[in-house]
């Protein structure tokens, strides 16, 4: 009886697992399949392509617009991540480790900032950027990305920093290290995994952004891939560029998915620690 129950349980949860995986993978497989279809097979309404062709990928990479957008996406996301994680790390360290008035306020303020809709600040920033000449530049996107990147970094890092054995920090200070030395030599190496997790999550956010990217850019100077594919017209206006859009989508999706799959455990920890313990 007990054996049978176990077996039933395994089958039951196993089916559940399969359904979850199919659910998660369906649109990914579909967009990959579309990107591999030849243009004459695009309208065959089949889920999997009959013949596989890399033509779409060749076209988007030989086009001027897509490689420029890919470079913008990568550069802007990396710089935003480095900036947000560095500033967020200082702030999180101070909030967790130092006694000073206002630290709870900073944490609450950061959380509140992360929650409000970006469309609220789009207009003022658009107008400010026009006046100071930051419209359609990398910096013009990196600065507004701090609205979601910094709170995320501060929140995740302070949740992780609370778990670090700070006795080591104290020991280093007793041995004569300044707080700064103790921080760089002892704490940063211990906190490296947390910093890395925060960096991945901030990168995903910046890489995903669409609203700022379409509102604050207009040309290949700074327009990122999500914005470019939304306005993609293709080489000829008589052909719907579905295959090309699909190929561009795969190019910006697959690298992030690979990073996420490799570091999944840390990401789950990062997502849930901040939210539930906080």
């Amino acid at each position: 009886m007990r054996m049978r129950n176990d077996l039933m349980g395994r089958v039951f949860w196993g089916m559940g697992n399969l359904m979850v995986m199919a659910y998660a993978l369906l649109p990914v497989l579909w967009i990959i399949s579309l990107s591999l279809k030849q243009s004459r097979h695009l309208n065959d309404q089949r889920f999997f392509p009959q013949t596989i062709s890399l033509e779409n990928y060749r076209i988007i990479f030989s086009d001027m617009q897509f490689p420029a957008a890919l470079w913008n996406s990568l550069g802007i996301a990396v710089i935003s991540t480095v900036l947000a994680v560095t500033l967020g790390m200082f702030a999180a360290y101070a909030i967790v480790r130092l006694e000073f008035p206002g630290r709870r306020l900073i944490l609450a303020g950061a959380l509140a900032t992360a929650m409000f809709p970006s469309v609220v600040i789009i207009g003022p920033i658009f107008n400010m950027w026009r006046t100071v000449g930051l419209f359609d530049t990398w910096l013009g996107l990196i600065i507004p990305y701090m609205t979601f990147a910094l709170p995320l970094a501060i929140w995740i890092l302070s949740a992780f920093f609370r778990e670090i054995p700070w006795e080591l920090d104290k020991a280093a200070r007793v041995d004569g290290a300044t707080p700064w030395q103790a921080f760089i030599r002892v704490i940063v190496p211990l906190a490296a995994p947390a910093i890395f997790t925060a960096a991945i999550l901030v990168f995903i956010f910046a890489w995903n952004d669409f609203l700022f990217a379409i509102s604050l850019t207009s040309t290949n100077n700074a327009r990122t891939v999500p914005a470019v594919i939304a306005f993609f017209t293709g080489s000829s206006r008589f052909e719907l560029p579905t295959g090309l859009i699909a190929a561009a989508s795969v190019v910006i999706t697959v690298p992030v998915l690979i990073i996420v799959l490799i570091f999944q455990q840390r990401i789950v920890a990062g997502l849930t620690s901040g939210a539930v313990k906080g």
Partner: protein
Amino acid sequence: MNQKKSNERRLGWLLCAPAVTALLVVTAYPILYALWLSLFRYDLRFPEQRAFIGLDNYVSILTSEVWWHALGNTLILTISSVSLELLLGFPLALIMHHTLFWRRAVRAATLIPYAMVTVVAALAWKFAFDPTTGFVNALLGMEQVWLTQRWSAFLVIILTEIWKTTPFMALLLMAGLTLVPHDLIQAARVDGANAWQRFIKIIVPLMKPAILVAVLFRTLDAFRIFDTVFILTRGAQGTETVSLLGYNTFIVSLNLGLGSAVSVLIFIGVLIISVLFIKGFGASLTQGEKAE
């Protein structure tokens, strides 16, 4: 000792200063600026007509059908997607929590929607429901042109939202599940409670803080829905949301005065949602903390 304390205080502020300054520059200042702009007639196409008009922008928005229609759409999308996500998130969380094998693979799979660019997810579903390129009609044996009618377009928008964010909801719920002590469930089982009773009477009450946090996060997130609607319909067929309305007034019509007023109203909407959650559930949130 006193010297050390004031040093610590100074260092604390020094370390927080860059982050706080950055946040003030990119959030507090633009919000105040939007508040200021919203009191002007200010259209970039007719800059010479700029004038202080007090609350007139708010009057024209609040008396216009467009705003209430967009607000209604946003509320429909928010309420339906968050409640369906909660409904689907629970079984998903239970599967992830109980699964004995493939645990890593299942958790990894649930991160895929989270990590996928929203625009790409929306495009994938758009192409899937497209009558010429898509497989959905072939699968269902239908000839439906999904995105040309209001309710079927809503259906696709909600489906896309749910696909993208249910796993996130499930992860937060799963973190809540780990807070439920195993012996408590065993004791209830011994006392003869069936699975459903154990779930309703023990698991859900203990998970309440986690559920509230997950629902609050997702509600605020769904209220600002933009990418999905932009890609799927651009707000056509009566599916415009408040974020889309704000974007259209600002960036498409370049009307900074009216656009700012829309922004301020959206901001107020978010404040109302937060206050409702904190007022309505604040007591049980802190209760949950005490119980821990």
